C-alpha cells in the first residue's frame, strides 16, 4: 500500500513540476488550476502521512528508523503547500518556478521515503 502510494505521489509531484515549469517557461504565474494541482499532490502526501502512521501503529517498523520516517512524511506533506503559499505572494513566473522546484524536491523525498521504509 505504502509503496504504491509513494510511487503515485512521486509521479504526481513530477507532473506538477513539469506543469508549473511549463507555466514558468511561458512567463505565467501560478493560476487556479495550478493550485488545484498542488492540492491534489498535497492530498496524496496527506494520505501517505496517514497510511504511514497507521502502518506504524500496527507495529510495522521502517528499516531506517521511525523518527526519520515520520520526519520525511511530515516534510513531504509540507513541501508543496509551502511553495504554493510563496507563489501566492509572487505573481510572476518565479512563483511557478518555485512550485516546480517543490515538485522536484517532493519527488526526491519520496525516493528517500521508499529507501527508509525498506522497499
Amino acid at each position, binding site marked *: 500500500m505504502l509503496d504504491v502510494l509513494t510511487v503515485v505521489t512521486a509521479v504526481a509531484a513530477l507532473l506538477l513540476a513539469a506543469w508549473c515549469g511549463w507555466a514558468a517557461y511561458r512567463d505565467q504565474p501560478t493560476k487556479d488550476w495550478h493550485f488545484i494541482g498542488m492540492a491534489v499532490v498535497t492530498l496524496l502526501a496527506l494520505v501517505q502521512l496517514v497510511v504511514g502512521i497507521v502502518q506504524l501503529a500496527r507495529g510495522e517498523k521502517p528499516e531506517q528508523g521511525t523518527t526519520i520516517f515520520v520526519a520525511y512524511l511530515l516534510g513531504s506533506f509540507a513541501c508543496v503547500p509551502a511553495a504554493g503559499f510563496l507563489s501566492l505572494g509572487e505573481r510572476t513566473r*518565479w512563483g511557478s*518556478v*518555485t512550485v516546480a*522546484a517543490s515538485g522536484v*524536491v517532493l519527488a526526491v523525498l519520496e525516493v528517500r521515503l521508499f529507501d527508509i521504509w525498506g522497499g
Partner: protein
Amino acid sequence: MAATQERPNRTRLASGPGLLLVWLYGVMVVGAVSRSAYQIATEFDRAPLAYTLSALAGVVYGFITYTLVRGGEKARRAALVCCAAELAGVLTVGTWTLVEPSAFPDATVWSDYGMGYLFIPVLLPLTAVYWLRRSRVQEPAA
C-alpha cells in the same frame, strides 16, 4: 512580506528569482537542522565532527534565509558574506571528505560537495552570490 511593505525603500531580496532561493534555502534549513538534531541526539559519538558540521551548515542556511526574507542593503551584505562562507565550507568539507574519508564515519550535508543533496549545497551559494550582486546593480545609488 508585511515588513517590506512598511518600508518600501528596503531592497526586496525575496522577489523574483530570490523567491526560489528563499524556498531552496528553507528546504536546506529543514534538511540540515533536522538531520543534525536527530544525529546529535541519538548517535553523536559515532561521527562528532560530521554532525557538528551539519549543524553549523544548518545555522548558516538559517541566517541566509532570514537575511533574504528581511531584505535591505545590510542584509544583502550579510547574506553575501554568509554565502561566501557557505561556499568555502562546501568546498573545504567536500575536498576533505574526498581526501580523508576516515575523518567522517558518517556523511555531512556538505560531504562530496553535497552530492547526497543533488549538489544543491554547492550550486545554491553560487546562484545566491550572483543574485545578491545583481540586486545591488539594480538599486539606484542611495
